[in-house]
């Protein structure tokens, strides 16, 4: 890998030896940390003319190399003993982790060759790093490499073993302190050979804004379709207000659905009707209200979502955000007990997303009910979520009140809620 020019003003990392190491600088007699004074020098420092001598002799300990068995330092944790095994070998150490153990430092032999210059630092165990820190910080002559953002390879990810698939799914499922409006009980669902839900157990609390978060393709939208009986589980049960959805007759199912309002990703407005007729549709089908009363309700709902001036527009005349808001108005028009939002933020700019989140919050405060928002947008979750369930690989990793989830110590939840590229979740 070609070396990047280093910024001489870049902050010095105290846990790392100075750059460049003495073996790499034939005209630099020693490194500031002092190991160049030790007798064992790489051959590169010798005046020998052979090109092969430019490589450090493998049998001799390099001046920057870690001791074979580092001494534990009192007050410091043992290096790497309890670090998660998921850490890819080629990752760079975190800048803030100077005094912390670096678990992947023990696996330098698997570092891809093209990352070799970085991996030298990973080979430094914490004790050696701590020892070098003072000297390195005192030096201004040689600078450490400029800090680069952590990088993840998306093409050579390590294969995960099948029995390790759920090692992060062991966090508690905390109760929200209120009864559940919807419950998933050991739900399995497969499409052909592709198993989406693999024993999902999840509760959606009554009268709260709940968010189901998770990476793309983990079954969030499939969850919504199970809640309203558009899909049935292959195994397990889905319970809405104490009634089993898969065991309902068609008539019971259609009655149950009247208690739901669903906002689909693109609003799912009927293309053959204008906005007013779209919002009025459920009222005309399910109530005996007169046309005057229906129009009044529709206008009120459209005003709530800021679309009272667009009542006569067709869906194809509306922007994406307007279609979502119109879909929201239609979802609310029957005063449902449960409102489901399937990725309300998809395709919206951050400001429109924020406004839509505020709208969801306001209308929930006004109407109450169980609101379920499916998303993978963390900002939206921070804005409106009262209860969060994190879904991955067809099961819940962790669920509970939002503030507890944002302070979770589960590596997957931590990575997902902070949007980091490093962690259990890769591109697979």
């Amino acid at each position, binding site marked *: 890998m070609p070396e990047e020019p280093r910024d001489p003003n870049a902050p010095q990392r105290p846990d790392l030896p100075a750059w460049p190491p003495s073996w790499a600088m034939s005209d630099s007699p020693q490194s500031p940390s002092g190991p160049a004074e030790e007798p064992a020098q790489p051959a590169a420092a010798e005046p020998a003319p052979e090109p092969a001598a430019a490589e450090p002799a493998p049998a001799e300990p390099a001046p920057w190399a870690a001791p074979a068995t580092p001494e534990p330092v009192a007050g410091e944790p043992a290096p790497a003993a309890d670090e998660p095994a998921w850490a890819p070998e080629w990752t760079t150490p975190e800048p803030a982790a100077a005094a912390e153990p670096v678990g992947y430092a023990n696996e330098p032999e698997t570092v891809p060759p093209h990352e070799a210059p970085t991996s030298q630092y990973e080979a430094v165990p914490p004790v050696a790093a701590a020892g070098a820190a003072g000297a390195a910080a005192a030096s201004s002559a040689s600078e450490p490499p400029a800090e680069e953002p952590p990088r993840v390879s998306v093409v050579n990810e390590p294969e995960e073993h099948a029995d390790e698939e759920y090692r992060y799914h062991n966090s508690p499922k905390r109760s929200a302190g209120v009864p559940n409006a919807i419950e998933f009980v050991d739900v399995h669902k497969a499409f052909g050979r592709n198993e989406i839900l693999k024993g999902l157990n999840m509760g959606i609390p009554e009268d709260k804004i709940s968010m189901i978060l998770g990476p793309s393709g983990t079954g969030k939208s499939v969850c919504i379709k199970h809640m309203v009986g558009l899909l049935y589980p292959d195994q397990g049960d889905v319970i809405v207000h104490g009634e089993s959805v898969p065991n309902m007759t068609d008539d019971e199912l259609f*009655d149950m659905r009247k208690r739901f309002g669903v906002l689909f990703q693109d609003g*799912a407005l009927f293309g053959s009707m204008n906005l007013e007729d779209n919002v009025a549709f459920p009222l005309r089908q399910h109530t005996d209200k007169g046309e005057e009363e229906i129009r009044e309700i529709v206008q009120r709902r459209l005003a709530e979502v800021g679309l009272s001036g667009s009542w006569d527009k067709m869906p194809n005349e509306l922007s994406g955000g307007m279609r979502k808001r119109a879909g929201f108005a239609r979802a609310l028009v029957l005063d449902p007990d449960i409102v489901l939002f399937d990725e309300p933020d998809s395709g919206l700019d951050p400001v429109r997303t924020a406004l839509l989140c505020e709208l969801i919050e306001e209308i929930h405060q006004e109407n109450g009910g169980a609101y379920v928002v499916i998303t993978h947008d963390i900002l939206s979750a921070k804005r409106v979520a009262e209860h969060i369930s994190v879904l991955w690989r067809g099961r819940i990793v962790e669920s509970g009140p939002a503030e507890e989830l944002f302070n979770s110590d589960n590596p997957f939840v931590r990575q997902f809620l902070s949007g980091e590229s490093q962690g259990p979740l890769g591109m697979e």
Partner: protein
Amino acid sequence: MGGPSAGWTAVPRDWFASFGEIVKFIWGVLKQILDLRVFKFSGEVLRQAGLIIMSSALVIWVLVFVVGLQCGIEGAYFSRAVGAPANAGTFAALCNLRELVPYAFGWMMAAKVGTGIVAELGSMRISDEIDALEVMGIDSITFLCATKLLASWLTLPFLYVMAVGAGFFASYLAVVEQIGEVSSGGYFLLFWMFQNPPDLLFSLAKAMAMATIIVLVGCYYGYNASGGPVGVGTATAKSMVLNLVMVHLIGMLGTQVFWGGNARAPIGG
């Protein structure tokens, strides 16, 4: 798994599976009408009826008119060639009522109504509109498919009879006004001699069988469309192929059943 035999049986197996799915779907739609559930959406039935009349009637009549002209011209020249120009009316009667008007009606229904239904339902499916209907507590099969079928049953007989009239009028124009080998009275004498009211009913039966199949096949392919816009296009093409096959099958079977054993015409004494 599977050998060479599994390979060649796979295609017919898929055909049977698809056929079974279509039959099951068709029964589901018909049941909604027989159970009278479709009348919960009588407003939608009327809307669909209006759409059929407004969007399809004129184009069907124009097509049938053109076909009627052709029947008249061909009949006039053929009958003149055998020295019996008055028999142009015979040819026009049989050609129009029994064969070409039902076929022209079926073709245009498949092209205009059938593909329109697939495109409409297919785009509703991929944009979640059908799911939206379901989650509002509305049976989408009843609302979208049964209403269309009932609307076609209500409107198409009248539309078809009008189409037959357009064909007859075109043949009259071609034989009497354009070629002029036979008088109006001579033309109508044989024209009406070679058809009677049951023939009109049989012709109508053929046309309505075609229309019913076309609407149901269109509903099936549109309702079950998947795979985005490309999937809707594929479903439209598939429905067109199946509809044309069915139109010709019904045309052939209808002719065999209604006139195959008895010409129902004063031919050969």
